[in-house]
């Protein structure tokens, strides 16, 4: 029985978690292991860990990031348990409590594994270098997060709770239509939004504080903003899926195509508002006022471009992330030559052409091929 249950839990909860978050892991894998030379990888991470165990502020930031990942795991598992297709898992309640505890601990440890392995390495290095305070903080924080998650899954399985709801009912004001997808993120994809925004704001903060240009040059900021826009590609996938499922009815509304595209741009401008505002911290060292339209338009146009790509037929998440990565790499080289406002304008034009071509009548391709 134990082995069968473990196999089922592995298949329906764990494997699916890594499948739907493939883009998320790919991105963090790139950030953690792809940005440094292979020969310096170990020393890079060793220095990083040294920083963590020697500075409590740094360690607190890392533990906070682990907490965000834990929330992501909790959100995913509880959502899966509430899916009608997974209702059969409630039969596990007939087993003794100790067994259920082991099963739920197994589920959490499997989805938490990437963080857990890194945390073990941090704790071991801290112990070896006699930073026992940091070691204790790592062990206690991880232990607490693991037990908390397991306990929540147990309670959820017993239906003692109806879901992990972080609703803030105070935010009840009029919603312009273009902002509806953002409300979906706020209400139903909180952890993903929080992780993305934390990452992009930390990236921007690090850049502005650590990099001091010798002469005025907009290119470094453009590169950082491009990376920030690309970090939103998993969010865009969620927004498209929400559109297809819950906003399909709006296709019956008599709204001109150009207006729909303008709504899309407004929505992404609003989504990027924290970064666009935070960017001011770098004024005037990292950019001049005349650069603003170029920077803003670049990030918005990249997001609109990714969104339009997802409208294309047969665009699954795997293809999408691959294309997003290729676009990111291509833009990286183009931006080195400072193409000015022309690049965002071109991206916007291509995004609109794709949007116009694929929003309503993507089936024309099949029609042509079947003829």
């Amino acid at each position, binding site marked *: 029985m134990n082995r069968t249950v473990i196999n089922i839990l592995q298949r329906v909860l764990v494997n699916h978690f890594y499948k739907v978050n493939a883009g998320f892991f790919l991105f963090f894998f790139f950030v953690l292991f792809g940005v440094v030379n292979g020969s310096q990888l170990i020393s890079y991470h060793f220095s990083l860990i040294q920083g963590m165990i020697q500075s409590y502020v740094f360690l607190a930031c890392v533990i906070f990031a682990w907490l965000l990942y834990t929330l992501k795991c909790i959100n995913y598992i509880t959502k899966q348990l509430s899916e009608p297709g997974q209702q059969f898992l409630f039969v596990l309640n007939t087993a003794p409590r100790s067994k259920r505890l082991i099963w739920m601990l197994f589920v959490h440890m499997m989805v938490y594994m990437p963080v857990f392995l890194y945390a073990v390495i941090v704790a071991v290095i801290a112990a070896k270098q006699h930073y026992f305070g940091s070691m204790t903080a790592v062990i206690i924080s991880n232990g607490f997060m693991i037990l908390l998650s397991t306990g929540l899954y147990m309670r959820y399985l017993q239906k003692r709770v109806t879901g992990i709801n972080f609703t803030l009912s105070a935010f009840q004001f009029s919603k312009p239509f273009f902002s509806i997808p953002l*409300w979906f993120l706020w209400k139903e994809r909180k952890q993903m939004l929080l992780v993305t925004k934390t990452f992009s704001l930390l990236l921007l903060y690090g850049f502005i504080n650590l990099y001091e240009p010798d002469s005025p040059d907009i290119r470094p900021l453009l590169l950082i903003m491009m990376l920030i826009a690309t970090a939103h590609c998993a969010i865009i996938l969620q927004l498209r899926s*929400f559109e297809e*499922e*819950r906003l399909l*009815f709006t296709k*019956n*509304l*008599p709204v001109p195509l150009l207006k729909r595209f303008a709504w899309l741009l407004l929505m992404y401008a609003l989504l990027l508002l924290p970064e666009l505002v935070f960017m001011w911290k770098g004024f005037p060292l990292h950019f001049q006022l005349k650069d603003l339209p170029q920077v803003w338009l670049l990030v918005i146009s990249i997001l609109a471009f990714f969104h339009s790509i997802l409208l294309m037929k047969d665009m699954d998440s795997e293809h999408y992330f691959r294309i997003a990565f290729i676009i990111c790499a291509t833009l990286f080289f183009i931006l080195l030559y400072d193409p000015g406002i022309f690049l965002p304008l071109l991206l916007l034009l291509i995004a609109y052409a794709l949007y116009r071509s694929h929003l*309503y009548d993507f089936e024309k391709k099949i*029609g042509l091929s079947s003829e």
Partner: protein
Amino acid sequence: MDQFALLRSMLQFDTVQKHYGNFLALDIPSLTVADGVYWLKGENGSGKTSFLKMIGGLHPFTGDISLSGASIKKNRVSFLQKVNYAEAEPLYPSFLSGKYLVKLYCQTKKTDEKQSLELLEQLHIADAYTKPLGTYSSGMLKKLSLVLAFTGNPKWILLDEPLITIDTSAVPVISSLINSSRSQKGISFIITSHQPFQDNTLQLTGTMTAANQTISLLYE
């Protein structure tokens, strides 16, 4: 001259094809549907919903559909001002309220909320008007989708299984609404339903049949 002569409008289908992957689900070489009330019949999976969704602008297809000469592909906004669609199983964002959707429909269909509010009262869901849709039952969502389908000044209303999940007391309200919309405003209907309307209260113009990957039309 018929008082609704100016309102009369014909739906025309020109080499319309609907594919799912490589599977040809619907093939309508040519079809003209005069104004009226039509019952679209067919087995499950025969293409009834796909047919309505194509007209409602929700599904892509090859070929063209036009209404009084206005093509959905060339004059989409004008076409959709005249065609409203209610889904069989409507899905909306759970955090929006009924009020939000009614306002959205009224704004885009360029009409006021008075008629929608009256309909909500008639269907006994006015009390939930300001509540989030996540708190609605499936029957309440269905009623709301029907109210939205009657919003504005459509020439055609497409109702996909309008009677499923709603309570029996709402059925006569919907029948009478369809009949009055037809007689007073000249609105045409295509209705799919596996359940017959009570006592044949609908005054049907014809019956459409979805079978063998196409749609055929038989006038009464």
